[in-house]
């Protein structure tokens, strides 16, 4: 057991199974196919038997020729197993973005920008035919409203592809670590059949089946860990041999007990959230057995304070925990326990480098001056604060109330969260008007939102670090921009299914009924109005950044990266 999975399972998810049409026959059929046929169902817990997982957490999907199964850049919460037919992985370079249902990121020309003065339609939500025009290379439709590549032979001809055959798994890393899909996979031939397993099911499969876990561990270590560790400064000096040894002994795991898109809104409403109930990754006062590196998701860093916990900060992808303690212990042959607690907020995927590995392999390669600051007796006694502690302690800088507010509402996810200082804001709506004039006369946010004290977080897209809205978009219409990473909706391929809008925990995506240029609502064959998802695109096609921020006459509105609470604190105390 070299991989730890600390999981609290909630089989209530089976109340709504992934696909209610899954029949027992389907399950029986699956159980005869590898790898399920090789799994020992006896190893599965009674709460989550293999049959149950296959019935409730998986679905069989059939793809037509050219249908895109996963898209590079998409966020998905499920993995795929090829059952029949074949699928092709598009190797580097990938397909053009327009074929993926995405919009090509580009700036408007200066003339186009000036021309907005008179070209902006006077009706709300007008869409021109040009805006709704899809790439002719793809077609949207089908049972799952999929996107179909129209000219498969030509794509096979022009792009490097690799074939995936029955029994092949893909998308599991992206599903488990909530990272973007690395490549596009599409079906070739009409007989392609896939088993799609949602991530909870996949997680349980891994827990109870050693073979699959070893398989995925291996892939994960090979493909992901090496590159990931290389990016972390403290591992940068390792040679290939050392890195290999580190990778071998590194553990990783996924924490969390719910999807934080849907469930979270409900839990917040019920008021049942509290830090004490969050899963603990590492506990203050425990012996530091490894450095925790956060790979995706978020974790709360807290410290005992009186009889409660005080949130110091939240850690996001790329942060580490415990390095200071381990380095100190290594250098001083001391046993300083963890000084903080690390708790899961929603969902966290972490990598743990055990303390012995750190001490034997990693730390000796680090020059003394690049090691973290050691603890002083005074700091351990709690009589003074070290520099690193102060740096970490954003809660002290922005105040515990605001810290709790940001954590409670998960606003740390935002990289461009719209915060409004309500003691400066005159409610003049200049920001809304500016937004509208930069978006064909349509505002893309609501100047309203959760408030604490003088800070309001407006209902505008925060361009999350972990964009849950991207999960489940059937056409890839909502995607990250190619340059700035901003989350945008391609109006041409959006089919108005509202999945992203319902997923967004921050009410930042609004469905609108679109109009013709003469102001009439566009309707489909059924005379139902066509709706599209709309949201802030961070003015990515305009010059000079978000118009809302620039247009605030009182400096009350700021797009803030919530992972840089220092700048937030600075802005608060301006």
């Amino acid at each position, binding site marked *: 057991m070299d991989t730890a999975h600390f999981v609290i399972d909630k089989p209530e998810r089976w109340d709504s199974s992934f696909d209610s049409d899954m029949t027992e026959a389907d399950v029986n059929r699956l159980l005869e196919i590898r790898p399920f046929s090789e799994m020992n169902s006896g190893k599965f817990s009674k709460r989550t038997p293999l049959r149950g997982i296959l019935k409730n957490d998986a679905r069989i999907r059939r793809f037509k020729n050219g249908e895109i199964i996963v898209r590079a850049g998409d966020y998905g919460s499920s993995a795929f197993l090829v059952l029949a037919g074949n699928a092709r992985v598009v190797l580097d370079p990938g397909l053009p973005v327009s074929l993926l249902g995405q919009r090509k990121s580009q700036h408007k020309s200066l003339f186009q920008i000036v021309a907005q003065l008179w070209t902006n339609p*006077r*009706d*709300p939500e007008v869409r021109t035919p040009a805006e709704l025009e899809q790439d002719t290379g793809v077609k949207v439709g089908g049972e799952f409203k999929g996107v179909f590549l129209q000219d498969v032979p030509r794509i096979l001809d022009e792009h490097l592809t690799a074939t995936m055959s029955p029994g092949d798994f893909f998308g599991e890393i992206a599903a488990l670590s909530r990272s973007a899909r690395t490549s596009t996979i599409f079906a070739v031939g009409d007989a392609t059949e896939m088993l799609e397993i949602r991530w909870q099911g996949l997680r349980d499969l891994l827990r109870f089946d050693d073979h699959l876990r070893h398989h995925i561990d291996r892939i994960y270590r090979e493909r992901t860990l090496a590159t990931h560790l290389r990016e972390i400064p403290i591992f940068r000096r390792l040679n290939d041999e050392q890195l290999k040894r580190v990778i071998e002994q590194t553990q990783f795991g996924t924490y969390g007990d719910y999807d934080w898109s849907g469930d979270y809104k409900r839990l917040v409403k019920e008021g049942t959230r509290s830090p004490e109930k969050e899963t603990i990754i590492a506990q203050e006062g425990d012996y530091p057995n490894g450095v925790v590196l956060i790979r995706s998701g978020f974790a709360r860093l807290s410290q005992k304070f009186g009889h409660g916990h005080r949130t110091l900060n939240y850690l996001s992808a790329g942060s580490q925990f415990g390095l200071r303690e381990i380095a100190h212990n290594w250098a001083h042959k001391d046993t300083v326990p963890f000084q903080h607690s690390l708790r899961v907020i929603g969902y966290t995927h972490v990598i743990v480098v055990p303390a012995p590995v750190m001490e034997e392999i990693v730390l000796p390669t680090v020059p003394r001056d690049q090691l973290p600051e050691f603890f002083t007796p005074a700091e351990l006694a709690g009589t003074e604060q070290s520099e690193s502690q102060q740096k970490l302690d954003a809660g002290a800088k922005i105040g515990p109330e605001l810290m709790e507010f940001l954590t409670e509402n998960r606003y740390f996810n935002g990289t461009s969260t719209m915060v409004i200082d309500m003691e400066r804001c005159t409610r003049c*709506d200049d920001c*809304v*008007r500016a937004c*509208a*004039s930069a978006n064909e*006369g*349509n*505002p*893309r*946010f*609501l*100047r*309203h939102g959760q*408030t*604490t*004290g*003088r800070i309001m977080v407006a*209902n505008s897209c925060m361009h999350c670090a972990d964009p849950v809205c991207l999960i489940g978009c059937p056409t890839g219409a909502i995607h990250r921009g190619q340059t700035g990473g901003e989350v945008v909706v391609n109006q041409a391929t959006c089919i108005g299914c509202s999945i992203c809008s319902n997923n967004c925990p921050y*009410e930042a995506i*609004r*469905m*609108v*009924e679109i109009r013709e240029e003469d*102001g009439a*609502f566009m*309707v489909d064959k*059924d*005379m*139902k*109005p066509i*709706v599209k998802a*709309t949201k802030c695109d961070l003015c990515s096609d305009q010059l000079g950044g978000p118009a809302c921020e620039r247009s605030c006459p009182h400096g009350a509105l700021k797009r803030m990266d919530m992972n840089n609470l220092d700048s937030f604190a600075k802005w608060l105390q301006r």
Partner: protein
Amino acid sequence: MKDQLPSPDFDRSRYDRPNQDWECGWTCDGCPCRIGPSPSGTCRATAECRPVLEKKDGEDKGRWRCTRSKEHGGPCTNGPLPSGGCACPIPTCQPRRSLRNQRGRLCVAVTAVTLALLLVGFFGPWQWRFISAGPVSSNHHGVVFAQMKHSWPGSDGCGACHTAAHGDLHEWMRAAFRARPGPFEPHRLLTATAGMTELDNHCLSCHPGHRFHQPNVTRDHSCSACHREHQGSGRMPPPADTQCLSCHGNGTVMEASRKAGEKLPPAAFDYRQVAGRQHFQVPRPERGYTRVFKSFDTDHPEFQLHAQKLTDTNSLRFNHSLHLSSLVQRNGQPLACADCHQPAAAGAHFQAITFAKHCQSCHALQFDARNPQLRVPHGDPVGVRAFLRSLPTQYADLARRSGVTAQADTEKFVAEEMRLLRERAFSGENLEQQIFFASDPSKQLTVGASPGNASPRARFAGCAYCHDVKPGGADGLPHIARVFTPDRWLIRGEFNHAKHTIVNCAQCHDAASSRRTEDILLPNKQSCTECHSPAGGVSQTCATCHSYHTVHGSQPQTKR
């Protein structure tokens, strides 16, 4: 912050669109419809859905199906009308302009009203009074100006000075573009000189050039450089020192003026005569008045009277010291300055000293102590001679006036008095000579008092006692030099005594120690700067004393 009201619940799945010009008329009722008004503000409300006709195979008529979407409540219970129309019409409304649109309209309206009012103001019945920058100063009121006003009746007299007023807006614009620097050359304003402008030509038609200041002015200075008209109906405000100093503080300008002055005949500068007024004439200094200076208290030249040690050339002998001493009394009191120097009506200056008003009450010219009623007439030697030659008649007259009626008594009185007079003066000729020429107080003719007057009369020793009497006039009459008592001593500056009542006369005028007529009792500059200096705190601007256009020096600047 804990007692903040919670934010009320409302539908957050819709955007607010404050940028739209119109909002649904039902908004103020709190229930705007989903369709919304058109950009031009008409209600577009129709119905909640557009039913769709569904025909199954083999069916003839088909069935209308409600297509209302889930977000708006899903298909309605009643379903579409048989005709295919929606059974849930949306009530139409009268769309309202958004607040911001109303503001825009207000802007347009206010702009339009302003434009209209400006048109009325500029071209309406009171156009000239409206555009005028203010009433014209009192300097430019009067008969001449009333006439000028009549010569430009169409423009309420504005045309007299302003060419632009000769026409309409077109002419205004033309005048505006004739201005130098023009409206589109604001950058030239920095370097523009104060030369003559079109407007000044109108000033020049009455005020001929700068000769009314000094004939040797070398710069063409625009009148408006110093003078602001239309500042109110009072007098024009005085120009600031800086304007004077732009020439007088500038060595080159002064040097040029000096050279120009040298070429001019001295008579050219003799321009300050005012009819009926006696000025104390000061000779023009060699260099003219071209000394460069910056302020009154520091480097303003000493008054010429003192600088050139000028003396009073008056032929009348007058001893201020004697008159102010206790020897001379009036009603038992020594004389005070104000006994003779009585303020003129405005108080700025004093009434001219005349024999009749100021001397005669003491110097009664009584030559016969027995008959103080008889007095030598003052003013004309011929009259004196005629008086003396008719002395018997004068005595007869006196007798009659004193109540002697009988012819014999009168003759007796005349003969007696004439005899006594002759005893003293030997003969008629002698008497006349004595009256004209005697100046020795010891040979006085008489001392006495007028009837009813307690104060002793000044002694009358003869005309020459006060006057410069020389023999050699026509018919053997003496030549009495003309008395020249100046009305104004300082002709380049004005002094307002009324403004200086705070100080005693003697603080400036050292009259008590002046025994000679030649003494000019005017204070020097230093005694002025005791107050008129930054230290003294009293204004020391040029215009405090000087007027640029001294041709009108008759108008003292008292109303300021």
